[in-house]
């Protein structure tokens, strides 16, 4: 019985084998299709980077590199323009710093709650909700900052100007909370349960297990999430354009208007800088600076999460 049925199945397979020849062409074609798709994004990236480099190069034929780096004045629209990137970097980093002050504690606390305290049911409910925050268009956050957070802050801090660094900083922080929370939670959930058991069995409380065992074990993933979040904060555009103002300054005053690199690029693209003018090329130089910042951040995040991955 057994033999016979085996025999007929093997026969059927043999018959089908001839048909499979038809698929051989598709078999060979598919990898090429996939490769092409993969290449599209790689080529686009290369194209963008090359454009950035060429246009930046054009910019530096008119403006000295030294001036760009060292000068502390950014007045591209003056009769006697000055192109010192420092005010834009100051504005960008200031907003990113405020954002991280908000996002790190709240994001990390949410991650600890979700990974160490919440029941499975709660986690399955809360995590998607948290991630909805990440899906809100940034322009909505921008208006939220300008029309809600800023007036609220003006009640607390008299003299806070309508455009300031504090409000968009806070809102950028709120925007990246889900990112920190979600990535940190992933890192903490990846810590083997046996490690928690070991700690509980020594008489640890839940908080001690979370802070002294799970957190250190997941540290690489957690730090990587911070770095990616910083990168996101630096690149954030709409919120800072809408609520941050357009006042490039090296002052660290969070209550007055600032300008970030991204907001400057928006300002120039929306304005009527003629093609080929120095002002036009300047957005590429700023874009290049921004790109270097976020690239470095992402590389650091990658190295951190890779270097410490094999700890457990």
């Amino acid at each position: 019985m057994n033999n016979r049925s085996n025999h007929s199945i093997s026969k059927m397979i043999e018959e089908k084998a001839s048909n499979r020849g038809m698929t051989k062409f598709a078999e060979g074609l598919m990898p090429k299709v996939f490769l092409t798709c993969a290449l599209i994004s790689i080529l686009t990236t290369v194209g963008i980077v090359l454009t950035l480099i060429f246009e930046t190069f054009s910019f530096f034929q008119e403006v000295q590199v030294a001036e760009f780096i060292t000068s502390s004045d950014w007045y591209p629209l003056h009769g006697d323009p000055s192109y010192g990137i420092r005010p834009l970097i100051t504005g960008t980093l200031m907003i990113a710093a405020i954002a991280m002050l908000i996002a790190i504690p709240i994001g990390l606390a949410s991650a600890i709650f979700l990974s160490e305290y919440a029941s499975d049911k709660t986690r399955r409910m809360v995590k998607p909700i948290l991630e909805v925050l990440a899906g809100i268009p940034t322009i909505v956050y921008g208006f939220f900052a300008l029309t809600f957070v800023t007036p609220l802050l003006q009640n607390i801090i008299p003299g806070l100007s309508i455009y300031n660094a504090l409000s968009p900083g806070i809102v950028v922080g709120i925007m990246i909370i889900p990112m920190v929370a979600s990535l940190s939670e992933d890192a903490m959930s990846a810590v083997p349960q046996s490690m928690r058991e070991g700690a509980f069995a020594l008489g640890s409380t839940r908080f001690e297990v979370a802070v002294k065992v799970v957190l250190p074990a997941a540290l690489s993933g957690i730090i990587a999430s911070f770095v990616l979040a910083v990168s996101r904060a630096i690149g954030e555009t709409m919120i800072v354009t809408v609520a941050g103002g357009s006042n490039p300054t090296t002052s660290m005053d969070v209550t007055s208007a600032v300008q970030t690199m991204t907001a400057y690029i928006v300002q120039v693209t929306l304005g009527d800088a003629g093609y080929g003018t120095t002002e036009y090329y300047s957005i590429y130089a700023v874009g290049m600076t921004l790109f270097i910042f976020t690239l470095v951040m992402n590389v650091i995040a990658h190295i951190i999460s890779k270097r410490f991955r094999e700890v457990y």
Partner: protein
Amino acid sequence: MLANTKSEPVVEETNEDKAVDMNKNVYKVDQLNLWYGKDQALINVDMDIPENQVTAIIGPSGCGKSTFIKTLNRMTEMIPIVKTNGSIYYRDENIFDKKYKVEQLRTKVGMVFQKPNPFPKSIYENVVYGPKIHGIKDKKILDDIVEKSLKGAALWDEVKDRLKENAFGLSGGQQQRLCIARCLAVEPDVILMDEPTSALDPISTLKIEELVQELKKDYSIVIVTHNMQQAGRISDKTAFFLNGEIIEYDDTSTIFSSPQDKRTEDYISGRFG
């Protein structure tokens, strides 16, 4: 202490010849039942666990032996669907009592797991973890604890020159002894071992077995094992579990030479399991 007013005579056929003395028992398990959701994993378990002896728990897979040992330090609570009733008296206090502090229980009752589970920290930090969370900060005392615990776990000579290295660099057997050292560092009263050698090679197993013999001078040990020879070699008393019930519990020599129950005999002689 109060909890012990419940002094009804539990069936203790095995202990009749020895003077039954509560002080000699670290644990007294009384009519323990446990459910995972709707599946009952432990049925009316009664068991006294003697001080400074090795008590082995044997039985086929799924008989409830691991579940049982994990109720002794309430680790079963980590699984939300677990429900228990009955009582477990540890040193005359019911550990299921609402006021009973589980952290305190787990400090007195250490546990070694099936797979070595050191923390991703240095060897030194692994050992001092317990003392540190319980508030010991003095560097000198901690140094002493590390040396004493590692010596107690027969690991000191192998690692004394690399205490600052990550524990994951140790072999499986060394990691398991590190886990024992980590457990000894808080000077527990009882050590629970849940198949501590099942993930180890024969030589590491032998070392752990020798260590258990050494440790019973100072600690009461409960060890779950699926290896009957191991139970025979190292334990003083043996309990045979089957389908969540204790079938037989007696001196190891009695269990292995003249078991009273047919099922025990069948299991011991390798007819199933």
